[in-house]
């Protein structure tokens, strides 16, 4: 009994450490001396709080690293700490650390620095990490809520700025709606199989004693609920407004973290529990991926605001990652499916953080400096930042030999192996379309005259250069990353 509990706790130790650290940090922050500089509304922030938060994430990451190669499961098969979850957890913790670096000076500059921000960030991260480990639909739902609720609040942390409040409200209302879909889907799957545990669902499916119509309805609703979180069309309506209105550092975290966690859950649930139904589910995923790529990329062309542009770019990339999921049920392809999705998630995370770091550096108070035209002349005035942005844009487009190209290459290969030539074709064509708006950013930066003002904040610059160097380094050494991603297979019981 006690040994059982210890194994269970051991399986989710990184999350326990992170969540308890957040609880303690919440109390510690109350008594820390406050730095009154970063406050305009009576809110204040101790400079130690972000450091302590980062320390907590590093501790959690150290535990994850120490346990790589030792898959454990806990709570009667409810949680699975396998190679897959280790990979995702490390990516998430790295995203959390980058977000702290992006937020620290930015929040102060905008006068919205608050200690709770970092606590909420840690709670959201805990939810995301739990989501990558969940092997039970109940846990998928609870961890989705734990990752979402802090994100709703973080999107609105710039209150009383109306755009931030609008972002929080839209994200919250539609997010609550999507959670409803997810719960209903889980309910239908439970009704069809009599269990929420993936292990049990697989057993019931193998025994043939289930209701096909209900399980397909449940799977469709689960796609809807999680598809909302990762912003695939047609569940993307909230994305542009929420991404534009939320503080930029929060948007950066939201786009990477929620997408990573959402796809982690989609991969685990579909690859483990529903491979038997791929004949029915694959066409749906095919359609969603195609629709997302087309709509995301074409809508991005019309955008003049850089945050909206990146929002539509985020939708389009959800479509690309969705491609990996399409052949999930084919024999021998599910490992490729998982590996190429994980690889692309890493590529997207690095590229995205590089782009957002530049956006944050150029953002002025009162939501100024966010139009595309504000980037004119950046290549001459701030060559380093312009180079970071150029690397990000090239990687987003998928120009060889950038990381984005390698990622897309693996995605297309997986899709082609699955025999979906049409989908790969749509992916290539929409990538060409995306070149139009990504390269326009580069053209504006280098070919047009302007006097952009950029912040010189040490942490922000470190994150910008670090992400860009990461993109470049991983483009050159992409083989080890793919090896790691392909090692990160889902462990089934």
């Amino acid at each position, binding site marked *: 009994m006690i040994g*059982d509990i210890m194994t269970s706790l051991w399986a989710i130790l990184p999350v326990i450490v992170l*969540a308890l650290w957040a609880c303690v940090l919440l109390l510690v922050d109350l008594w820390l001396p406050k730095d009154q500089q970063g406050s305009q509304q009576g809110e204040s922030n101790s400079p130690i709080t972000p450091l302590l938060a980062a320390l907590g994430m590093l501790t959690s990451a150290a535990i994850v690293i120490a346990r790589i190669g030792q898959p454990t499961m806990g709570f009667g098969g409810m949680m699975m700490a396998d190679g897959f979850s280790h990979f995702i957890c490390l990516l998430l913790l790295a995203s959390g650390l980058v977000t702290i670096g992006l937020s620290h000076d930015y929040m102060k500059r905008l006068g919205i620095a608050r200690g709770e921000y970092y606590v909420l960030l840690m709670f959201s991260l805990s939810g995301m990490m739990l989501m990558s480990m969940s092997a039970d639909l109940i846990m998928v739902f609870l961890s989705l809520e734990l990752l979402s609720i802090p994100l709703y609040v973080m999107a609105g942390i710039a209150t009383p700025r109306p755009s931030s409040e609008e972002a929080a409200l839209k994200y919250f209302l539609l997010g609550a709606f999507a959670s409803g879909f997810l719960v209903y889907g889980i309910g239908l799957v439970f009704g069809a199989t009599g269990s929420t545990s993936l292990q049990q669902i697989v057993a019931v499916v193998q025994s043939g004693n289930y209701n096909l119509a209900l399980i397909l309805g449940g799977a469709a609703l689960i796609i809807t609920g999680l598809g909302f979180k990762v912003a695939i069309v047609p569940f993307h309506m909230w994305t542009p407004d929420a991404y534009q209105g939320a503080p930029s550092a929060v948007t950066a975290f939201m786009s990477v973290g929620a997408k990573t966690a959402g796809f982690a859950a989609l991969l685990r649930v579909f690859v483990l529990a529903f491979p038997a139904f791929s004949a029915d589910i694959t066409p749906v995923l095919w359609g969603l991926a195609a629709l997302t790529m087309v709509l995301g990329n074409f809508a991005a062309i019309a955008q003049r605001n850089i945050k909206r542009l990146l929002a539509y770019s985020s939708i389009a990339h959800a479509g690309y990652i969705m491609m990996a999921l399409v052949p999930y049920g084919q024999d021998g392809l599910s490992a490729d499916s998982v590996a190429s999705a994980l690889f692309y998630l890493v590529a997207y995370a690095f590229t995205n953080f590089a782009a957002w770091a530049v956006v944050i550096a150029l953002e002025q108070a009162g939501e100024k400096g966010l139009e595309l035209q504000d980037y004119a002349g950046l290549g001459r005035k701030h060559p380093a930042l312009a180079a970071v942005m150029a690397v990000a844009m090239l990687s987003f487009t998928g120009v060889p030999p950038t990381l984005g190209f390698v990622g897309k290459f693996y995605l297309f290969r997986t899709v082609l192996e699955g025999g979906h030539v049409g989908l790969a074709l749509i992916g290539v064509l929409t990538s060409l379309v995306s070149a139009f708006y990504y390269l326009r950013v580069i053209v504006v930066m280098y070919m047009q005259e302007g006097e952009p003002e950029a912040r010189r904040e040490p942490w922000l610059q470190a994150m910008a250069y670090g992400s860009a160097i990461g993109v470049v380094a991983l483009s050159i050494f992409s083989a080890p990353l793919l090896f790691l991603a392909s090692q990160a297979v889902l462990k089934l019981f």
Partner: protein
Amino acid sequence: MITVSLIIFLIVAVITLGSALMVVTARNLVHAALWLVVALFGVAILFGLLQAGFLAVVQVVIYIGAIVILIIFAIMLTQRNALEIGSRFNENWGWALGISALVFAALVWAIVSWPGFHVQAQPLDARFDSVAELGKALVASNGYALPFELASVLLLAALIGAIVIAWERKPEER
């Protein structure tokens, strides 16, 4: 076969559906919230009919006792003067009705086509104590111990969120 519980079920179902319809069509927001109380109470009785007494209590304590109160507070916080908000329908109501009807028909078909739907479930043993079973499952390490603890972390995050969003800054700190 007409039994007492069937008659009770039919009456309660009609009341629940009717008041749910009133919630979405009432022109006065406070009235809508009060109709919601009736609808939620109907659901509580349905839980009772299904021998899920604890869920019936939860329904009354949480939904009627707390959530409807919060809804009424929210109405009083936002509405400036008149509570009459006019018609609840916009030009898309036809579409919404069509899609909802379609989804409803599909779900009904899916559930009715399942053979288990036509099998009468056996009533629970009189000695079966669902609350005690729930209590044991909540803390069993191979049961729902983790969701249970996670629920408290979730509540904590929600509490922080509510204070961060809605807390009024004290004038001297402003």
